[in-house]
């Protein structure tokens, strides 16, 4: 596996829900580590709540989530 890649999401600007968009990016990534930067989600923890099912599934790479 390759190194690290970073995706940035602007929640309000996304056409698709963030959880769907992130799931697609995780499936497509061939990197060892995926860094996700999320902006515009309001309460930071509520962004994690939206991603809970995705993060609870088995993930084959490292995921680092920043929420501004």
């Amino acid at each position, binding site marked *: 596996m390759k190194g690290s890649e970073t995706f940035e999401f602007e929640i309000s600007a996304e056409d698709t829900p963030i959880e769907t968009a992130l799931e697609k990016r995780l499936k497509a990534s061939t990197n*060892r580590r995926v860094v996700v930067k999320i902006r515009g989600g309001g309460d930071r923890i509520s962004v994690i709540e939206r991603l809970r099912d995705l993060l609870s599934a088995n993930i084959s790479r*490292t*995921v680092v*989530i920043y929420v501004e």
Partner: protein
Amino acid sequence: MSSKTTPTFDILITSDRTMMTNHHGREFLGFVTTGPPLGLPEKIWMWMCAPKPKVDEVGRPVEAPYGLRKVEAALLDAGFSAAIIDPDHLARHLRHAKVLMIGHHDYFALNSPSIEWWLLTGKEPVNRRSFLRLMRRPEIREAKRRGLKIIVGGPAAWQWLWNTNFWREFGIDTVVDGEAERVIIELAEKALAGEELPLYVYVGPPDTPRIDEIPEIKGASVNGLVEIMRGCPRNCSFCPVTLRPLRFYPLDKIEKEMQVNARAGLRGCILHSEDVLLYGAKGLEPNPDALIKLHVLAKKYFKTLAWSHVTLAEVRYAQERSNLITKLTEVVLDENQDYLGVQIGLETGSVRLAKEIMPAKAAPYSVEEWPETVERAMAILHEHRIIPALTLILGLPNETEEDLIATAELLDKLRDYRSLIVPMFFVPLGQLKSRSWFLREHIKDEHIEVMRRCLWHSIRWAEDMLSKFYLKGPQHAPLRLVLKLFVSYVKWRGRQVEKWLNSIRTG
């Protein structure tokens, strides 16, 4: 005139009392922290299972949980000013610290058996109560207001995803889920530099550390626990450990950790692995030479030895193939030790369910031979004075009444083998993470039958163990007495429940 100054640390590592204890030197008493205080005041319950540990003059415990010791070692090796601090001594250190790291096996009592006792009794287990009390201490809140960064992790890190109210309330900056040795350094650097921290880190299999990247502990671990390997090749679908690669510690690395524990005055050692009998194995083929050397090494430093886990299939195979259980117990059992304790997953007595969730658990025997393998392994353990605490899983996905009847029938065959059997409710982990939780309303008559058998089996053998093996000697007399009273209380309550169940059945 010399003045003594208390050392200060940038990074404090801690946990609540149910973790920061040596359980009176009896690891199995750690199970008691997963229950609510039954028939006893909470203070006595906590004394029984989680006494305060010895600490040095600044509050560093002599023995600390192994996972916290690994984080401490990684930070110290990287040059950070870090220390494990007992929760009762946090206040003075929090005035100076910039980061607080916390680890736990079961923050919110969502793992088995905590969740099971909680569901059955309707009372919060003491591990959860104790953790919430810790996080609500004024000194932590005050330090948080001053800018303290809080990073949480450990095997129960996933529970924060389901307790986001507490994530908010306690102001947790980062949750780290997975083997942390690689990522913790990066997080510590960011936290100390005042840089933005990620809210959540999931450490995937490619980021798990290689053996040479795993640091050796710098201070003693609780009850002398030392890891001998990580990962497991059996691939059971309910277990998160199998998602990680299999790695063996070389003997010299294990010896260094044993030396740390021996220097701290510990007289016992627990070899930790998902299956100790697979140490150095090729696939599932045990490596007698490696295992005997490992046990001889442990007995060189310690009077007593325990295994964290083995599998029943490996017990049977190791003995049938090369008399290995006999050879290992010849090394372990001596004038200092007359039994060997271990925790083992029995999971189910149903071949049908075993095929679905743990097709390799019986290997190298066929899964159809699972009940026979269990019975033969239990006979081998009994004969060799190895006392297992067996765990069963109730409420597995797709479990049927026939599966539960098969489990109950297998339990009947295990009646004469010295052991404790603890039924646990299914918790969605591993490859079954997305499946539903097992809840109180899902309990059927067949579950009750299995639980009844476990209860009476465990009471019978707990009384036997307390009179013949466990906590011998006058120094343990008060604890032995409390435990005997507790077992008598459970027996009395069990009889009451039996009467109640019979009255329901007879209308």
